[in-house]
């Protein structure tokens, strides 16, 4: 089991490395460039002092910028020269990829092109907001999904059950942006209900506890948006699984023994239905990672999702690659954890079995 775990973690690390390397190379081959973003747009009349910025002047500025950002080196060990005849050229270790790898192995994730700050520090700063938000959303959503699934999987019928089912189906097709905006307009709107804060830092003279309370309230809307967005994805398959299990022979036996519907669901059907739920949980990370981008933009939270979205828009490659490495690592680790949980819950699935 230990050998399997080490091999699996090694494969996950290699996969994360491969993904980050691909993003590293692909980002630099994309049209548009960081210097296009950083340099003031040519053809702007608001800076008349610039005079005629000829193509040669601009190329000079661009070269200075590329040199400052370390982009003047060849991209990889081997590159193809542009234009015909397009020969392959070997550059040795004097290339951007090699420099990135060496720095990474020394714990240096690079520096943001925009403000020169270390990528790791920026990611750490942003994770302070994103991790609790995504973690709390995942925990709340799983708890609610279990409770709702147990309720909905009981005998069909009942108006409330139908209403909840319909609401979940509606939530499933609703884009998160629309859902979050709807909640914002509903619960933080002076023209409607204005009970939750959605921007700002809280009153300056608030005590530490008051500030903690303020931030708890401030997190309510983004948290609610995320929970509602992932709830149907977790609940509806679980309901179907629970209903399937209740039709199995062992459930009929349990029913014949006099167990109530809820007892059958909790004691017998749920342990069997929970295994596929682990796969859904492992898939929750990408959904949440995409979700936090939306809620962080809408509710002005300085989290990881917003940081990476803005970095991608600004062609801030070091930050994008760092973020991809982190997300890919977390995702692959999540899959390994799901496998481990599978083995713990069902010994028949263990590699040695």
């Amino acid at each position, binding site marked *: 089991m230990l050998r399997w775990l080490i091999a699996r973690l090694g494969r996950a690390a290699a996969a994360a490395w491969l993904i980050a390397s691909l993003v590293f190379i692909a980002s630099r081959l994309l*049209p548009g460039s960081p210097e296009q973003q*950083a340099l003031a747009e*040519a*053809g702007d009349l608001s800076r008349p002092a610039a005079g005629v*910025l000829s193509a040669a002047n601009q190329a000079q500025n661009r070269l200075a910028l590329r040199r400052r950002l370390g982009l003047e080196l060849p991209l990889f060990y081997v590159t193809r020269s542009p234009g015909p005849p397009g020969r392959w050229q070997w550059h040795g270790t004097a290339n951007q990829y090699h420099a990135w790898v060496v720095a990474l192995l020394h714990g240096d994730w690079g520096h943001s092109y*925009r403000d*020169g700050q270390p990528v790791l520090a920026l990611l750490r700063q942003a994770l302070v907001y994103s991790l609790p938000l995504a973690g709390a959303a995942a925990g709340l959503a799983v708890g609610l999904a279990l409770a709702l699934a147990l309720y909905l999987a009981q005998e069909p019928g009942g108006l409330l059950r139908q209403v909840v089912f319909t609401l979940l189906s509606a939530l499933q097709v609703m884009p998160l942006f629309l859902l979050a905006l709807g909640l914002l307009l509903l619960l933080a709107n002076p023209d409607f209900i204005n009970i939750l804060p959605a921007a700002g830092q*809280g009153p300056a003279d608030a005590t530490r506890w008051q500030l903690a309370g303020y931030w708890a309230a401030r997190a309510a809307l983004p948290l609610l948006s995320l929970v509602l967005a992932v709830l149907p994805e977790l609940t509806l398959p679980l309901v179907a699984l629970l209903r399937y299990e209740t039709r199995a022979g062992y459930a009929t036996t349990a029913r014949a023994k006099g167990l109530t519907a809820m007892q059958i669901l909790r004691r017998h059907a749920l342990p069997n239905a929970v295994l596929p739920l682990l796969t859904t949980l492992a898939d929750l990370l990408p959904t949440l990672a995409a979700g936090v981008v939306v809620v962080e*933009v809408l509710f002005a939270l300085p989290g990881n999702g917003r940081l990476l979205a803005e970095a991608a828009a600004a062609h801030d490659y070091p930050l994008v690659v760092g973020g991809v490495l982190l997300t890919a690592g977390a995702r692959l680790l999540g899959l390994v954890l799901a496998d481990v949980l599978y083995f713990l819950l069902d010994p028949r699935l263990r590699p040695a079995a």
Partner: protein
Amino acid sequence: MRYYWLGSLFALLVSACSTPAAKQASTPIHIRWARDPETLDPLALSNPSAIDAINLLHLALLQVDFQHNKYAPALAQDFPGVRYEGDSLTLLDYQLREAATWDNGEPVLATDVDFTLKLMHCPGLPNENSRAQYGFIRQVRIDPANPRRFTLVCRSRSAETASISGDFPVLPEAALDPAHTLRSLLLATLQDWPLSRSPAPAVAAVVRRYQQANLARQPHNLPGCGPYRLASWQTNQELHFQRKAHWWADKLPAAPIVLQARPQELVFSVLPDDAAAALALRRHDIDVYPQVPARIFQQLQASQAARQELVFYTHSSYDILTVGFNTRRAALRDRRTRQALSRLFDPVRLLAATQLGQGTRTVGLLPPSSSFYNDSLPLPAYAPAEALALLQQAGWQRGADGHWRQPGLATPLAVVLRYRAEEATFATTGLQFKSAAAQLGIPVTLLPAEGSVTTAALQAGDFDLYIRLIKGSPFGLNFATILHSEAIGSGNFTGFGRPDTDRLLVAISTEGNLARKRQLLRRFQAIIQEEMPVLPLFFLPYRLAATRQLQHIVPSGLKPGYAMTALAWPAAVPPASHP
């Protein structure tokens, strides 16, 4: 007492969510920013938020007076005296204010100006934008008899050189180069230093000290001479500026508007989403919402509650929505074809659809408020019949298959229109043109793309037409950056440029006599309308919404759209009651 904490928390939330507190002079003014400044490095000038913030920390020789939309002396005692040397040099004689000091009490001297200009040319610093903008200043001649007097030697004969020569934040030499090592190097030497050559040891040492200061994130590592200091910065959330208790300009007997700083505290809230920012304004989380999009502005004005709480301003800006034609394309080489296509854009309907009808139509690249505006020219208008006639005059004939063909051209007339994808106004303009062109049988392919991809395509000439916003200003009339043949491949995307128009553009930028300049500019506008390399559709408006209690709101057509240091709360205001 058991639930006291719960009650106080609820009270805090309710007070934070709804009721505006009574405003005192010291109450912070909260302003919306759409994005974080990212870096406060005074050399970087990276985005509008950063430029606004840097203007609070540092001062320039001349600063923008938003009330009159013109430059006014700030660190400089007065506007510079102008002299000319030879055919191509302008000499600007500046005198710094006696009272101007850094935070540590040291005076601001000519050596600081010289040092700042040299920093713009030190390799390895984020100074590429500053270098491009102020590279025309070749030398600083310091008066040996007066350390506050100096002459800027500028490689330009432009009439506007004087006013635009002083708009850069001046930095203290003593903090970054205490041994004055850069003084031994001439500014021109640094400017001409080849990129391939390693920098001089003195330059490398200054660069190292500058980088170690980490001014991008910790601007307090460098003394400033501006009215504010950065109190806190929560990335992507909030920047808090506090007014200095003892600022040198407070001692001036009659400080000009550019040296007035009324707010005691300015808080910039970074709210990327427009709808969320509008709600934040309604909830009193922010007090000023500049650059309000048309749709949000309309919604706020439609709400009776919002009208009671807020004031609204609209001011014509210098940003022009333009369409550009690739004059190098065979199909668009004939000006009549370009004129024909220009008649298919409908500025009136576009203005109504995208800007609530609040922009200003124009005949050319100058605003109608300019004294150089050519009011004899007709305003561009939607005229499909004229377009048809012009196409026929240009030799286009419509075939049986519905396509337009010109003798000698293998392919029928079809247009690829590029624009930045994130701009709704561009998309609406593109769709309107596509629909109008379809009625004449001209196929149009819309190619919206990310900003830098679009710019790269325009510079490479990979387009037929483009839609873009040209950011203008009232400070200079230098159109060479977008229409001179030397700027092809750089800022001149259209490929337009002839020897006579190049000469005209240079003459416009150097002419000092107002009457002759007016004549040249009127001719320029007529030529552009005739040749149609670009079609200016209209000047966009700047919209601003602010809390009604706020005073001294000075809206402006220049970014950020208002004078932030002029804002103030009234002396005493009772708390407003809201239903």
